[in-house]
């Protein structure tokens, strides 16, 4: 397709989108005020399904499909980073030097690591009861693991972080979320419907599938963030241009930019 053809196609699509968007905007309720019909119904539904955290109920129960999309966005972003930041033909891997860290900082890091891990898992597990959930807890778990990098050494981090296992974990989290939806579709009303027993209000095992989906998202986010940071760390600490300068795609040395 020529460039002008592409431009014309884009303008046509943009025109249709703009018309639809304008009609939708004119139909919106006015800003502010005391009337919150959606909010009232959402909270009512959350309480009816015995989920103390109404936000978790909206995220993982009422609109669980949207959260699947968001989780996939993170998955795709990590995938993109892995592809973009991989070691290419013109780069070589070098040994990082040991960093010098004081004994106090090292002790703090090693003491804080299990505490941070526990806090992260606590936030994931209590996602249906208190503020938090899979995403927040997953990020805390990933940060806790990287305490080994900032408080000790990159090589200490490498020991506990075989990246391929975390890539597996990332995929497993995404898979678990989708499979939960498929199972609920097979077992009951719809994809990602809440079919498990709802339990007691404010108990840890309440709100049905919210617990499972929280755990799946927690695993996916934690492993995804570890893989993402691994690509950044690799580039910043280990990978450098091979001797002779950067090479172009066919292996011939390129000129250094001045």
């Amino acid at each position, binding site marked *: 397709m020529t460039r002008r053809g592409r431009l014309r196609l884009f303008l046509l699509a943009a025109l249709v989108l703009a018309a639809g968007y304008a009609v939708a905007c004119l139909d919106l309720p006015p800003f502010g005020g005391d009337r919150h019909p959606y909010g009232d119904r959402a909270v009512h539904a959350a309480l009816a399904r015995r989920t103390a955290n109404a936000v978790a109920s909206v995220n993982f129960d009422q609109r669980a499909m949207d959260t699947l999309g968001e989780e996939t966005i993170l998955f795709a972003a990590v995938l993109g980073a892995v592809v973009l930041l991989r070691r290419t033909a013109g780069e070589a891997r070098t040994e990082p*030097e040991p960093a010098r860290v004081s004994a106090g900082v090292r002790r703090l890091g090693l003491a804080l690591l299990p505490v941070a891990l526990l806090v992260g898992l606590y936030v994931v597990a209590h996602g249906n009861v208190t503020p938090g959930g899979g995403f927040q807890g997953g990020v805390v778990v990933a940060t806790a693991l990287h305490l080994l990098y900032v408080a000790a050494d990159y090589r200490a981090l490498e020991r506990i972080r075989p990246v391929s296992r975390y890539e597996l974990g990332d995929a497993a989290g995404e898979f678990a979320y989708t499979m939960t939806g498929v199972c609920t579709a097979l077992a009951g009303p719809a994809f990602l419907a809440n079919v498990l027993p709802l339990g007691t209000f404010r108990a840890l095992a309440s709100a049905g599938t919210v617990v499972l989906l929280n755990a799946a998202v927690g695993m996916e986010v934690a492993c995804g963030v570890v893989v993402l940071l691994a690509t950044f760390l690799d580039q910043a600490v280990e990978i450098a241009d091979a001797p002779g300068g950067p090479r172009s795609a066919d292996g011939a040395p390129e000129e250094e930019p001045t």
Partner: protein
Amino acid sequence: MRTSDGWLAAALVPLVLLAPVLWRVATGRPRDRLIALNLAQLLAALALLLASQGFARSSYLDLALLLAVLAPAGTLVFARFVGGVPAAPFVRRIACAAVPATVLPLCAAGGVSRQSVKLLVIGALLVAGSVVTSSGTQESAEADVADPAGGGTGPGAAGGGAEGGVPGD
């Protein structure tokens, strides 16, 4: 939602104190910015603790717990790239004074309960984190990011020096 204005007014104090700290974070050398950021994280944690009591929602303590655990990690990340943890006795003194002054009245207001235990844990984490991240160490080997002109002659060329940072000790 019933709010307790006294506690919310107390929460206003660390919030307002964050303004001069912002000035320090936005201007100055990277080491000074690091110290100011450390102090800002401490003040923010205290503001969250007081707000949790003011809004009568104990679930907001999780926010302070998260910050107490991640703030030292953040400070150490910056310290790694600035060239060691700078010594900041000012922050250490404020931590040792302000954290008990905030946590103990909150524990008294909550009585003997799981919430008080959580408060004490948060307080201990805040003090430990602030004290260690303001203790000051010698230059680390990665001082080239924030001060590319000044950090280039660090001791990294000697490799594996006396300070035993090698894992597996």
